[in-house]
């Protein structure tokens, strides 16, 4: 089985490139549909989009974590987080943040909580909060990303002095972000500001793999081309494995929903990156080297 896969990988690399291309096309479609139906490319969470905060100023014997879990089960779509409030070293109450902005919806949440804890009217307060980030945040983010990609491209050209690698690195980072974003949307989770950082973290991980292949394939002359590819694949696979186990461990054991989200995005991104790097980019490079080879032979 493994030998067969290896054989396909060695000989049918052009055909295999359909997989990443298809993934990219499907992802772009998903983002398009997402934008058309919701007006945004991504499901924004409360801190990106705004929501409400219910503050309870009464003592009760439930840890914020337990309350959070129970409320999350009852209101799975409301994106609920609970934190404790303290003053002068004493816990004074709890704050329940949710993505709810609609009065009727908030009333239901408030009723559930006050029924559970036998709260009187004066024991809690409700605020509806606007977005912490300006509306043009995502626009700024996109501009920054365009500059990131351009600068990355320039650095690659300066470093490797080969245009094709520059294209590869940018393409890989672009595909990683777009495909991961589309899959993230399909999970139905809502994006937290720290999740944005996770998408940028993907660039860092993706670059490492691209540089290993480019160096081995373009700068080295030892062994055949395929030997060099498999050498690079071995290194790349170890790299992906170590990151994957770390991310999986974190995903299982971490309590914070925010960190969990970062890890989930990284997990999706790493798998996407493996496909993009080892099928798409290796394919492009081999194609490029083959063409060069033929040119040399022609001369």
């Amino acid at each position, binding site marked *: 089985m493994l030998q067969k896969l290896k054989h396909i990988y060695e000989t049918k690399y052009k055909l295999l490139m359909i997989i990443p291309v298809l993934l990219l096309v499907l992802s772009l479609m998903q983002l398009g549909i997402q934008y058309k139906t919701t007006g945004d490319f991504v499901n924004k969470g409360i801190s990106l989009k705004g929501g409400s905060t219910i503050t309870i100023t009464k003592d009760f014997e439930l840890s914020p974590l337990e309350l959070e879990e129970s409320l999350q089960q009852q209101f799975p779509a409301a994106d609920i987080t609970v934190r404790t409030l303290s003053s002068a070293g004493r816990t004074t109450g709890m704050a329940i943040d949710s993505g709810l902005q609609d009065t009727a919806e908030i009333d239901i949440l408030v009723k559930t909580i006050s029924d559970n804890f036998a709260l009187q009217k004066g024991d809690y307060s*409700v605020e509806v909060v606007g977005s912490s980030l300006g509306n043009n945040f995502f626009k700024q*983010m996109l501009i920054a990303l365009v500059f990131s990609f351009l600068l*990355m491209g320039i650095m690659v050209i300066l470093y490797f002095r080969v245009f094709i690698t520059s294209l590869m690195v940018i393409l890989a980072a672009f595909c990683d972000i777009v495909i991961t974003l589309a899959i993230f949307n399909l999970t139905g989770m809502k994006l937290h500001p720290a999740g944005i950082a996770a998408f*940028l973290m993907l660039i860092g991980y993706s670059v490492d793999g691209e540089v290993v292949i480019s*160096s081995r394939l373009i700068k080295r002359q030892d062994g055949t081309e395929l030997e060099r590819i498999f050498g690079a694949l071995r290194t790349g696979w170890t790299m992906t494995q170590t990151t994957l186990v770390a991310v999986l461990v974190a995903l299982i054991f971490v309590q914070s929903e925010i960190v969990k989200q970062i890890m989930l995005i990284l997990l999706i991104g790493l798998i996407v990156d493996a496909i993009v790097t080892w099928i798409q980019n290796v394919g492009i490079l081999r194609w490029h080297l083959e063409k060069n080879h033929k040119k040399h032979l022609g001369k």
Partner: protein
Amino acid sequence: MSTRITKMLVNWRVLLLVTLLLSSVLAIKPQIFSVEGVEIHSMAVSPFLTEAGLSNPSGKVMPTARERILSVNGIETGSVEDYYAAVSELRANKTYRIETNEQVYTILAPPSADGSFDLGIKVKETSSSNLRMGLDLEGGTRVLLQPASEISEEDMGTTVGSLKERLNVYGLRDIVVRSASDLEGNDFILIEIAGVTEDEIQELLAKQGKFEAKIGNETVFFGGKKDITYVCRSADCSGIDPYRGCSPLDAGYGCRFAFQISLSPEAAQRHAHITQGLKTISEAGSCYLSEDLTLYLDDVEVDRLRVGCELKGSSTTDIQISGSGAGATQADAMTNALQNMKKLQTVLLTGSLPIKLDIVKIDSISPSLGKEFLENVMLVGALALAAVSGVVLYRYRKIVIILPMVLVMLSELVLILGFASLAGWNLDLASIAGLIVVVGTGMNHFIVITDETLRKEAEAIDWKIRIKNALFIIMGAYVINLGSLIPLFWAGAGLLKGFALTTIVGMSVGVLIARPAYAAIVKILLEE
């Protein structure tokens, strides 16, 4: 083996790593043994504290070097609860002793109507290291403001903008300012700030900041960009007034400050028009105009300046603004004067808020799930490290490779945290994400170094070239990543700055110091 260890210890790359590692540990200064007392977090500005010589702790002081209260009125304060219990016993009209790790202060509790006395010092548990946590990890102050009357959406936007600007001018970090509304449709403004005293914020926010300069009953100019085109904040044209300086008062000292501003041509024209009609008077050999220039802040007179005759009818654009501050000692008076100056400069720069704001609620926030969160993150980090070590052990099956790999990776983490302590960064969730990237790419690079030096094809190649090949890949990944991170500095809301900064510093430390040291160690340990 022993020769290899000696070789390792004299290798300059390893030596550099070890030296920086030790300096980082010194900078982080983890408090392994428990420290006596409770740390002073903030204090209210009240005369009895100033007279006793107590003042608000500066944000620049390293967390472990902050002043700690050891006892209040003879009662030891081993914990925050102890402290507040001791303070609740204090009554008005008495003398108390407060002992800190630096000195003993004597406080005269002033008389009060009901006999109660509020010391006004807030404390927290002593810092366990010099690392500073951001608002989402450590908590901070949260203020809810309500406009005193109906406010339009446009005015709300302007108010939020001016408040942000004001807090920034005041040098506060980690600020969130946003508009909010409740179910009845009332508008609020919500502000969150990490580790700042409630009083400072209270004073700055509740003031509408209406600044007016009048001659007689006529207004010459208002605070804000329309009338004031420039406010000097550099040392050459702002600070303690060099001609009048500080002098002793009946009780304590008083200091004068002064700074330059530039008026718009329209405001200058008004000045010319108003002063044109004034009489001139002679006083102590100098010639002045009959009316003074009076400065008002929120309708309260803050200073009164004489106007020289040469300014009569002139449309001058350069004006010097002055004021004063008082205190028990000369140093206190100077600090107060400079603080007043900063406040005045801030309102002159940002102008008045379109509306007066009332503070509805002000409270200290605890971090999201608190200590639990940090402990959990550390546990997860340790588990992830174990899992990663397992993978590389399975792949390379040599403890001489795994051990240095894990040790160097850990030292990379310590180097970044050491840097963060020295630079006074607030570690928040985004910078933790940055740390994860650095550690992750660091692991990648250790694998690259190991593979480049140990792979079969490389056996024929000289060790120097093997390492050169490995470092070529790592350098490449580094410069390309640098390219992708730099634009993030300017991308919205400052949210990604922490991420970009931590990642850049971490990668630089890793690529320039730790990873070459690992390469050197591998070479020494495995070279035949």
